[in-house]
């Protein structure tokens, strides 16, 4: 009996935990093969690493977004937090703050925005859609005020700190051929997977999103759980924002606009239910990959980039339609 239980546990450790992830994985493979066949430039190491680099920042945010959506909530402010924390950090660096301190403060500010989101939503009972829509604009406004609408540049000319190359390395460097940015994404994904599947907090996020009343009756404080999810996505948005400025060496007030919708799209394509209570980190990673491959492949095929949004939009609808359809047929 216990031996059997043992194998059950370990089997789940290595395989996908549901057929849903297999479905989305197959979709990814199909898209991947399609572009490999259609374009000679698609399937080579340089391009693949390029795709990975392009999706890393979105991926980091999508990990947090997945947790928020599992809680049955939504966060529209991540793109603004992504931009604002970067601008704040850049301005601090230019004004003589040590880089490490500016970095820590930038992340702290992003986390704080997330905390504010969570506290407002859980304690005032204002819907997350409204609170984070408001925060999206408030935080965007802060970015524009601080930058006065201008581009903020980070370079040895503007920042007088010998550790600047280390900071820029986070965005531009490579370790064993893999961009450091991607390593951050991989680490975030592993961390999110662990949090979601192996910790009490992740367990409670599922519970709170699955049935608020049952969670309450089970002695779970859903306010704390949800606020934690918002703080985490705030933290990750700020981290992504800082990696972005380290990569580009510059940031402006409008940086990160539309990021929130891409992050939500990746989570949904990955098979996480907007209704809350069930989500998948692996699926979200695949959802991010699909978006990256689509964007890259469309350009390589010489299709007008204006088509990108249209195609990604159609994929979102298709993914959810497939999901509903398979669930219906699975039930009957």
């Amino acid at each position: 009996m216990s031996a059997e239980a043992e194998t059950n546990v370990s089997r789940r450790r290595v395989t996908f935990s549901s057929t849903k992830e297999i479905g989305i994985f197959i979709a990814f493979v199909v898209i991947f093969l399609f572009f490999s066949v259609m374009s000679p430039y698609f399937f080579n190491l340089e391009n693949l690493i390029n795709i990975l680099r392009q999706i890393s920042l979105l991926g980091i945010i999508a990990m947090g977004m997945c947790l928020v959506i599992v809680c049955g909530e939504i966060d529209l402010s991540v793109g603004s937090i992504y931009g604002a924390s970067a601008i704040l950090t850049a301005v601090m660096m230019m004004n003589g703050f040590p880089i490490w301190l500016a970095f820590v403060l930038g992340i702290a500010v992003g986390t704080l925005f997330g905390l504010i989101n969570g506290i407002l939503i859980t304690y005032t009972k204002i819907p997350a859609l409204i609170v984070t829509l408001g925060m999206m604009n408030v935080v965007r406004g802060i970015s524009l005020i601080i930058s006065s609408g201008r581009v903020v540049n980070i370079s040895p000319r503007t920042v007088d700190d010998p550790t600047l190359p280390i900071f820029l390395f986070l965005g531009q460097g490579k370790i064993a051929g893999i961009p450091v940015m991607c390593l951050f994404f991989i680490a975030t994904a592993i961390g999110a997977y662990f949090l979601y599947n192996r910790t009490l907090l992740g367990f409670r996020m599922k519970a709170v999103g699955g049935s608020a009343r049952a969670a309450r009756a089970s002695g779970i404080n859903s306010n704390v759980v949800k606020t934690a999810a918002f703080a985490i996505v705030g933290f990750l948005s700020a981290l992504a924002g800082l990696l972005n400025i380290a990569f580009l060496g510059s940031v402006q007030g409008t940086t990160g606009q539309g990021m929130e919708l891409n992050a939500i799209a990746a989570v949904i394509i990955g098979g996480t239910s907007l209704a809350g209570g069930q989500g998948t980190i692996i699926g979200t990673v695949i959802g991010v990959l699909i978006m990256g491959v689509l964007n890259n492949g469309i350009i390589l095929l010489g299709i007008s980039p204006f088509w990108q949004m249209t195609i990604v939009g159609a994929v979102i609808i298709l993914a959810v339609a497939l999901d509903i359809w398979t669930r219906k047929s699975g039930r009957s």
Partner: protein
Amino acid sequence: MSDIIDFRHITKIFGAVTALDDVSFSIKEGSIHAIVGENGAGKSTLMHILGGEYMPDGGEVVYRGKPVRLDSPHAAHELGVAVVYQEFRLCPNLTVTENLFLGRERQLGDGKVDWPRMQTRTSEILAGLGSSIDPTALVENLSIADQQIVEIARALALDAEVIIMDEPTSALTLKEAEELFVNLKALRARGVTILYISHRLEEIFPLCDRISVLRDGRFVGGFEIADIDQAGVVRLIAGGDLADLHASEVRDYTDRRKVLEVNGLSRPGCFSDVSFALHEGEIVGIYGLQGSGRTEVLETIFGLAPEWAGSISAFGKPMNNRSPSDAIRNGLAMIPENRRDAGIFPDMSIMDNVNTANAGDMSNSAGVLRRRFMADTAEDFIRKLRIKTSSRFKKISQLSGGNQQKVIIARWLASHPRIVLVDELTRGIDVSAKFEIYKILKSLRESGLSILMVSSELAEILAESDRILVMKNGAMVADLRGERRTKEQVIRYALAGQ
């Protein structure tokens, strides 16, 4: 007077439960006809069939001599049957007139929407009910009594010949109820037939012309109101045959230590001045009709009520639970009434569902889940409680109701409680699973747990509890034990309060 409605051999089955079993009786045109029975006797099911919400599995409804097919509320309306549900079905954000003509906006205007005409018609109908409600008022701004009048007016706007009233006085004050009775009598004078479903025998006798009694889904008697008295109806509702089923199993624990003591407990709008004690190893049942405050008492003890007064103590120490997590810490567990909404986590596995109330054991100090422990706990309970499943990874929503409830019981046993509160433990569960669950209940008391059990099922309360507390209208009206712990006594107190 001729018969307007004739129920012929109506049968309705929900899964393993037979809600109506070969029910036949007729209703005379222009009468007020009461339908009575205890919780679960089949009154609501019959009403839903007549209202077009359910289709009977057997038998037929005959209307004015013709068999009719009531496959939707719309079909019932076409026929002239309207239901005024206990929970009103009005759109609070619309005006009185808009509600009256909802879905039929073109009816009065020869195919066009003619609001002034609808307004006038609304005023006429309301005036006929002796009401001065403004037709342009928003429904959400009306009192409960006025909303009920709007419901009745809507039935009249449908030109209803038969109006079914479901527990119409449950939310009304005495004075409002009196006004309602005047209205109902006036409607009867105009030839409208009224089916009056109520628990309150004291209102039925002065108001109604005939009375039909249902018990366990069967029709057990119909009378002209003059031919029967209140005691006779109570006897019929209770049934003479099963007075004390399991009296042998009943034990007297009242000399043991008190594990839970409630004194003068009140919650505004729900119940007041409720006092009782629960002893070690005891199973105490709380019986009462819907709305008598039973569930609210349990919720209050478990920390789910926003505000309350009085005192609760557990194991001799005062207990003030502000949330369920406080209650769990104090050794309490609660299996809630509504399994689907407040019990299960539908998307989670059996294993995860078992472990949700078990935070202390299921994770280490760093908050990392102890998955082996969770798996062992789940496997242990699947075996002990005989939960029928192929694997602990199966989603709980794929189990039958009885097995789902066993998972919920497992969840609470895993939290190591000392007092268990249960609310409608076996609602919607088939008979064999019920008996298994009762067995579990008995085995829990053997291990020293004390159980406070709310149930609408009289047979369950009588068979499973050592002592029966009866609630009526938010008050604790009886503590029945020993000789007095009989079905007749329970029903008498629950209906009449004395």
